[in-house]
């Protein structure tokens, strides 16, 4: 005889399962956090900061591409806008504390992102990508011509200054923990956004836009907001990068950079939270390792080959594939 199941029990089981999943997630995040805390004692801190800056850039891009399904080909513009603004302010206004410079850079990228979004958001797919690319090229041209950027030579010797006027960021370890704190803050923010009702709407738009429209959502507004948040975070990554390296250069504005962030995101696994971080780590590492060895002439072809392989064989990226594997075998 089957006992009638109490609905409250089912609810309890579901909650328990959810808790177990959260615990697992917390554990993974905790281990990663400890690793990141200890990392500068095992590796060269500036290199780690480079990885973190690019990881933040990729996380920002992934919010738009992975969760809202919008492929922007112009994200380099935000990275550069953030970097140049911060660099200009910190170099020319002595006494400006570093975090204000970084905030100003982020704000510039946000405004630019809003402008991009308003102009491009009504287009979809390849047209959207092309409009963002074209706008980013305009921004690139502006940076080439503008006096204050130093054109081809770039902006050099940006002072790192003091955080809140107190902590000396010239010290690599201080700088590292500052970058780490900002990165983790942004990562948690994106995690929160993705799991919020707003994030659910974004995913719905990605899966089936007409259906989201028919449910009464004003999809353009949701998309604009996603674009603006993404560009703000990309700008923040650029600002941090210019402070870390004390340098803002045209490289950041070049469309190669927009391509590179797509590569990082796809390699790591788009639409996953950890994917872009892994992807950025991988790409930055490969570039560094290859440039040291006899294969240095081959960095671009090798990265290109990896990209093709990923798109053809591992479409959900490193993290995506691992997730699939876990889901299949350890359900």
């Amino acid at each position: 005889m089957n006992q009638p199941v109490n609905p409250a029990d089912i609810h309890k089981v579901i909650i328990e399962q959810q808790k177990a999943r959260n615990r697992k997630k917390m554990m993974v995040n905790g281990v990663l956090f400890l690793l990141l805390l200890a990392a500068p004692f095992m590796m060269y801190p500036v290199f780690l900061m480079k990885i973190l800056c690019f990881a933040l850039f990729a996380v920002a891009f992934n919010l738009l591409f992975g969760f809202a399904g919008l492929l922007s080909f112009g994200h380099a513009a935000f990275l550069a806008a953030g970097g140049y603004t911060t660099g200009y302010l910190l170099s020319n206004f002595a006494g400006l504390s570093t975090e204000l410079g970084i905030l100003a850079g982020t704000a510039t990228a946000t405004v630019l992102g809003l402008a991009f979004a308003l102009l491009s958001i009504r287009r979809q797919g390849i047209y959207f990508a092309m409009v963002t690319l074209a706008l980013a090229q305009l921004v690139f041209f502006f940076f080439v011509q503008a006096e204050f950027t130093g054109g081809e030579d770039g902006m050099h010797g940006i002072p790192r200054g003091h955080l809140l006027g107190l902590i000396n960021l010239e010290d690599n370890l201080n700088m590292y923990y500052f970058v780490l704190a900002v990165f983790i803050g942004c990562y948690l923010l994106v995690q929160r956004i993705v799991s919020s009702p707003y994030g659910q709407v974004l995913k719905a738009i990605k899966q089936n836009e007409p259906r989201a429209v028919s449910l009464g959502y004003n999809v353009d507004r949701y998309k604009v907001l996603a674009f603006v948040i993404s560009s703000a975070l990309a700008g923040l990554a650029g600002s941090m990068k210019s402070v870390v390296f004390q340098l803002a250069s045209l490289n950041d504005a070049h469309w190669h950079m927009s391509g590179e962030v797509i590569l990082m995101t796809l390699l790591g696994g788009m639409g996953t939270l950890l994917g872009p971080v892994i992807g950025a780590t991988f790409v930055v590492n490969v570039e560094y390792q290859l440039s040291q060895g006899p294969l240095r002439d081959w960095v671009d072809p090798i990265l290109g080959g990896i990209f093709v392989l990923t798109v053809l064989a591992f479409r959900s990226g490193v993290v995506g594939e691992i997730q699939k594997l876990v889901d299949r075998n350890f359900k």
Partner: protein
Amino acid sequence: MTMMKKLLASAVASALMASGAQAAISDNTVKIGYLADMSGTYRDLAGPNGLKAMEMAVADFGGKVNGAKIEIVSADDRNSADVASSTVRRWLENDGVDMVGGLVASSVTLAAVGLLEQNDKLGLVSGAAAASISNESCSPNHIHYVYDTYAFSVGTPTAMVKEGNKRWFILTADYAFGHALEADVTRVVEANGGEVVGSIRHPFPTSDFSSFILQAQASGADVIAMANAGSDTTNAITTAAEFGVTQAGQAIAGLVVFLSDIHALGAEVAQGLQLTTGWYWDMNDETREWSDRFMEKTGTKPTMIHAGVYSSTMQYLKAIEATGSDDAQTVRQHMIKTPINDMFASNGYIREDGRMVHDMYLTRVKTPAESTNEWDLYEIVRTIPGEEAFRPLSESKCRLVKN
């Protein structure tokens, strides 16, 4: 309180540094970094063969200086200030590199010299053209060895205006470097009694120069000057050759042109082009002997950058040998005191702003009939004395120069 601490700390640090600087080679190793574009536009004029030149210098020196071994590390800067800055930072902060050589693209070099000053290590710039490197951006931590845009824009235009080519047309790459070069050329041409009848800016980079060359032809100028570099220059020269510019009586002045560019173009295309170079392999027995050895290793004749890398590395090692120290300031001071006489320069000397002053050469590319082999490309028209070729100290904006 903090002020006191800072003072104390800096006093202790400088005392330590002063005592360390006297007689020691740090880690008993002289570690040299070679940073250049190994795979992009500037591969041929510096690139992997520059590394070979540096290795030749170390081998010729004996591989050891005062018992300390000499190590070379190298990296590709990919013409990116970003890559350069992270590589050099790691070299200096983490890997114990004492000197960075090569340094080709100006953006790369500007990024590197900032870091060199922060870490008080030495940079020997053999490639970068921007005159600002030994002017506004000079530092007590680098030496600008081979050439700069000032020397290029003085050399060719002065000589050509004096020959009677008064009317100039300038073809300018539309970015900071091109603009600076255009301004320099205009100044020199006008100072010598010439006239700039027109100029046109082309996007950077450009592959199709036909419309620009047609306008230059139509301008009626005596000389068409190329205020651009790399593939832009070679593309423009190729187009000019196709349109028969020199055969029709107009001269072409290349401002930033290397032997590797001319070799790639060939005498047929480049014939008659006038340019300024800091060094040429076929000048005397010493240059020929060194170039033959270089060619055995690399299969090409050296450009002035290759020769500069060899010569500057050699001078650096000699300075360490003489002073017994690899401290950047000690070595640099010794290099400034010592005149340079080798296969690269005769009676060259390094000024306090880091500018190495040596003779430059105005050359004309030979015609195919005059050229006896594929590397026999230049005819030296005039030797430009170093004092005339480089910006005088009285005009310098360098903070190390007291005016």
